[in-house]
């Protein structure tokens, strides 16, 4: 009896081992597959980080064929921008030539670059102010370069001695949260971008970038040459500068020169002129441009915008524009113009 039991025990142990092996093999195959998937996804993850390919791990991801660089003696609100964007850096300085073969100091070798400028003072920005965002593309190889730049305006509150600098996101929950979030939206709506600076005394900018993107193309680019890219921004002071097609009704003071050429809005061959672009922008971004107490005012605003030189329309739009400006000044302390460059 004792022996039987022991035999039977030995037999079941052998079965157990077999089963264990089976499940081990099954587990092994599964683990191997899982490892494969893991490796692939990890490679993908690493590939997202440019530094890995730079380190020579050769994961086979083609990087962008250029670096971005900044030039200038000063950084605007250096403390604030480093607090606001800790992942951004000033880059490291190096000597490069421009396309006229004049060498200069450029700050580069970072994928998140803090831009620089040359003016003597920082200055505070108010409606009516304008400026230029300048950065450089330095190709890492000879050949044609195409890139796309998208522009964003990000607002901050605080930043004084007794209030910490805080980005105004959709989930901002500080004091006057709803007004502050809306003011950040107005800020984005009121900063307008243009491709070209003022070209004559009669109007200011051309090439309205109302979709906040700018395609850049540098044919036959030479490596290690710094090619400038300029984006002109403006915070229009009055609605009359933007919306009026002419100043015939005298609604705009003489000194408030138009933001874009005074002309009728037109679409020629599918291409909208600047006036059409800006009027379309005022309509499509109406909730970011105008502040109206009643939401019903926003509906049907396109006809109002298209005939803004009618006194009643002009007054309605001007009030909305100025109220939004006032909210910006009250709730927004800093704003960041952020450029995202994709190849």
């Amino acid at each position, binding site marked *: 009896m004792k022996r039987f039991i022991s035999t039977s025990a030995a037999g079941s142990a052998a079965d157990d081992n077999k089963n264990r092996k089976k499940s081990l093999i099954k587990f092994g195959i599964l683990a191997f597959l899982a490892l494969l998937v893991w490796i692939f996804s990890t490679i*993908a993850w690493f590939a997202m980080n*440019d530094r890995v390919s730079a380190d020579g791990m050769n994961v086979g991801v083609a990087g*962008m064929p250029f670096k971005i660089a900044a030039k200038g003696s000063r950084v605007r609100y250096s403390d604030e921008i480093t607090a606001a964007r800790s992942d951004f850096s000033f880059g490291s300085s190096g000597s490069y030539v421009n396309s006229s073969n004049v060498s200069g100091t450029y700050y580069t070798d970072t*994928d998140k670059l803090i831009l620089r*400028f040359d003016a003597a003072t920082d200055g505070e920005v108010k409606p009516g102010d304008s*400026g230029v*965002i300048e950065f450089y593309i330095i190709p890492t190889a000879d050949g044609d370069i195409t890139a796309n730049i998208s522009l964003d305006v990000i607002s901050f509150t605080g930043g004084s001695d007794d209030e910490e600098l805080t980005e105004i996101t959709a989930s901002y929950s500080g004091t006057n949260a709803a007004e502050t979030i809306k003011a950040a939206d107005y800020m984005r709506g009121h900063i307008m971008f243009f491709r070209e600076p003022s070209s004559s005394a009669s109007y200011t900018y051309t090439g309205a970038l109302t979709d906040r993107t700018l395609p850049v193309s540098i044919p036959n680019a030479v490596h290690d040459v710094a090619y400038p890219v300029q984006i002109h921004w403006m915070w229009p002071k009055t609605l009359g500068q933007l919306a009026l097609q002419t100043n015939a009704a005298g609604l705009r003071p003489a000194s408030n020169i138009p933001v874009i050429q005074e002309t009728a809005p037109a679409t020629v061959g599918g291409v909208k002129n600047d006036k059409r672009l800006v009027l379309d922008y005022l309509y499509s971004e109406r909730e970011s441009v105008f502040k109206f107490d009643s939401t019903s005012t926003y509906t049907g605003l396109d006809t109002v915008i298209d005939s803004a030189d009618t006194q009643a329309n002009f007054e309605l739009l001007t009030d909305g524009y100025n109220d939004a400006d006032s909210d*910006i000044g009250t709730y927004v302390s800093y704003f960041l113009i*952020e*450029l995202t460059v994709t190849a």
Partner: protein
Amino acid sequence: MKNIISKLRAVPLKRKLQVVTAAVITIAFAAVFQSYAWFSEQKKAAEMFKVKHPDLLYLNAAHGEDQIYFNLGNIDIYLQDENGNFVDASGNRLADGVPPVRATNRYVFSVSGSNTTAFTLQLAYTTNNDLEYRVYNAAELDTEPSGDHVDYVLHEDDPSTASVNEASVETHRYYTKGSQVSFNKMNPDSTNSHLALADSSNRYYSANYGSGSLVHENAVPMYEQGSVSTNTTDEFCKYFILEVERAEENSNYQLDKETDIVYISVEKNNT
């Protein structure tokens, strides 16, 4: 090894298909991840700007109280006692035949705001009674000074001075006169400086009346403007004393008119 091969052979077709499908999907996913990583590669650049606080400018009564408390009330033309007798500066009744002494009425108002380094103060007034308006810079004091001053009783509760028996407590502010704010007359009639220019080519006149010419000459407002600097871009509050006094005797004016209008307005200077 042989075992594994034979095992694989033994796997039904359905299973094999499943395995192959799973493998293809896995590889496809891996490829997508890699391509996504390539697409998502981007560089960023940023520049920070500071937003200027909005330009604010307020016109208020003394101590920054609501405009409703800037009350001119009755303007005295001559110094009189409660019985209507003409008196001198010390309150003594004047002898018969002595010309009455002109009364000086003083009212305090304030201009406050931020981000305004200079502003223009404008007086616009009708000339019905030939009143003269002068504006002086003023200083606010909590305690009554011994010298000449304007006494102002606060209307709004001041939490720092409110007491249990609030109704019986009057909080005063005292204003002393400083230098006079110099005004330019924008539209004086050159032949009679007491009247505004009613020339239709004058923009002050035509802005009010267009080309109309049948306007009573004393109803045409006289505009005076003076620039005041705050010397700061921070918040500020400046006090002013408006002095109203009948202008020098003028035979053109009778004393039977009752109404005059004076507007005070401020505008930020473009700097």
